[in-house]
């Protein structure tokens, strides 16, 4: 009998996992004992970190796109389709393009984050973002011609993809305007929902003095309640109004509705055991990356490391052995601190981050990794 592993989502987590399993389970795949299906609703795999550089005119959204099929081992069935229903009791799912439900033996949900700007009145109309291809291109149109006024970067909701990216954006904008002799004409304000400038206290403690030194205004305890595009004002639940000429936000994030409909967790995030990544509410279901509600950052490195754990666990289960691999919270991030300097952090559930002194070498390391990311997606790095 063939065992079916279905991976939903062809982002970093799903793609790395598909290639990991193709390698680990090669004998079983060759013998027809296992079938691996990777489902994605877009023929392309998208590498989102590219978007940070688009508004500054340094990268194109196309730089972050490759055909999913070209990245995945031939032993994996790539299906371009949308899953419309999951029944974890019957271990079945439905595809948009198929009439009959499909059985699965193991299901992995790696559906990632979506943006929900409509949750804040006025935000979709007035706010710009660099958390989507179209958002980063629209922001580029504004930013490249922005020479004076108030630039406000507001983190509206957490969790959001790449927790370092809001800091990176204001650090890069500060440096970029300075290099062009415009910084005195541009005021930069950074808002964050809690009393620190970042969710992680160690990163917040490191970042705040850099922001102060570089005259980046800080508004903490700022939870955007509404945006008035006519008066160009953003108002917080805490009662603070900020005027802006250019508003850049990190919009609220949600997972996909399918997950809540399947009873696997709220707001599209799957409740999981944070070590085994198994769903709390169903058997033979795993989640990874942004989709897994582990409390660690929504970052590509997390999805990458979690894919290795899920790959090992699934291979053990297929072979009838106890699954022992666990995820320890490992997270790794480069943090741009300007246009030619970056820091680096590495941490896990037990060990907090300690940001490295910013250097040009780390900046080039980040850019080099972004180029070599395609090896990660292929399961080679």
């Amino acid at each position, binding site marked *: 009998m063939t065992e079916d592993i279905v991976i939903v989502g062809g982002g970093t987590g799903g793609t790395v996992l598909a290639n990991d399993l193709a390698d680990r389970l090669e004998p079983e795949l060759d013998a027809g004992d296992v079938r691996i299906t990777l489902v994605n609703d877009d023929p392309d795999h998208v590498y989102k970190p590219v978007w940070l550089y688009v508004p500054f005119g340094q990268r194109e959204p196309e730089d972050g796109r490759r055909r999913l099929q070209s990245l995945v081992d031939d032993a994996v069935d790539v299906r371009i389709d949308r899953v419309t229903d999951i029944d974890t009791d019957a271990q079945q799912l439905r595809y948009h393009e198929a009439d009959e439900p499909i059985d699965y033996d193991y299901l992995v949900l790696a559906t990632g984050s979506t943006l929900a700007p409509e949750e804040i009145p006025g935000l979709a109309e007035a706010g710009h973002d660099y958390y989507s291809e179209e958002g980063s291109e629209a922001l580029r149109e504004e930013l490249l011609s922005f020479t004076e006024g108030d630039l406000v970067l507001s983190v509206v*909701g*957490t*969790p959001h993809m790449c927790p370092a990216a809001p800091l990176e954006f204001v650090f890069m904008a500060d440096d970029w305007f300075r290099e062009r002799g415009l910084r005195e004409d541009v005021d930069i304000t950074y808002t964050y*929902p*809690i*009393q*620190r400038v970042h*969710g992680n*206290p160690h990163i917040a403690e490191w970042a705040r003095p850099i922001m102060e030194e570089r005259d980046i205004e800080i508004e903490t*305890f700022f*939870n955007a*309640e509404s945006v008035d595009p006519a008066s160009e004002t953003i108002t917080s*639940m*805490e*009662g603070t109004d900020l005027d802006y000429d250019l508003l850049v936000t990190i919009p609220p994030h949600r997972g996909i509705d399918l997950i809540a409909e399947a009873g696997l967790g709220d707001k599209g995030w799957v409740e999981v055991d*944070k070590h085994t990544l198994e769903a709390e509410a169903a058997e033979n279901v795993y989640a990874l990356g942004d989709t897994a509600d582990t*409390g*660690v950052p929504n970052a590509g490195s997390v999805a990458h490391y979690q894919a290795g754990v899920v790959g090992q666990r699934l291979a053990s289960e297929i072979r009838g052995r106890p699954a022992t691999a666990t995820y320890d919270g490992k997270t790794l991030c480069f943090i741009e601190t300007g246009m030619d300097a970056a820091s680096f952090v590495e941490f896990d559930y037990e060990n907090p981050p300690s940001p490295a002194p910013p250097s040009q070498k780390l900046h080039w390391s980040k850019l080099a990794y972004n180029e070599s990311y395609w090896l990660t997606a292929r399961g080679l790095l």
Partner: protein
Amino acid sequence: MSESQIEADETVDARGAACPGPLMDLIGKIRDVDAGTVVLLLSDNEQSRTDVPEWAEEAGNELLAVEEREDHYEFYVEKS
């Protein structure tokens, strides 16, 4: 019923969530409810003991009570 005899209208169970998850979960719930609603936040994160009172004061919401349970805290917050 809690020792404080306060009856919550909504409960947010953020036990197990890492910082700042519990506070963000509370803020998310306060966003969704009407003024006068009492929200009960359950958190086992020590940081919540300072995060929650500071935010409640900043946002003008009233922290009605904090109860210490065996393995978590209970925060009763009324939306102003």
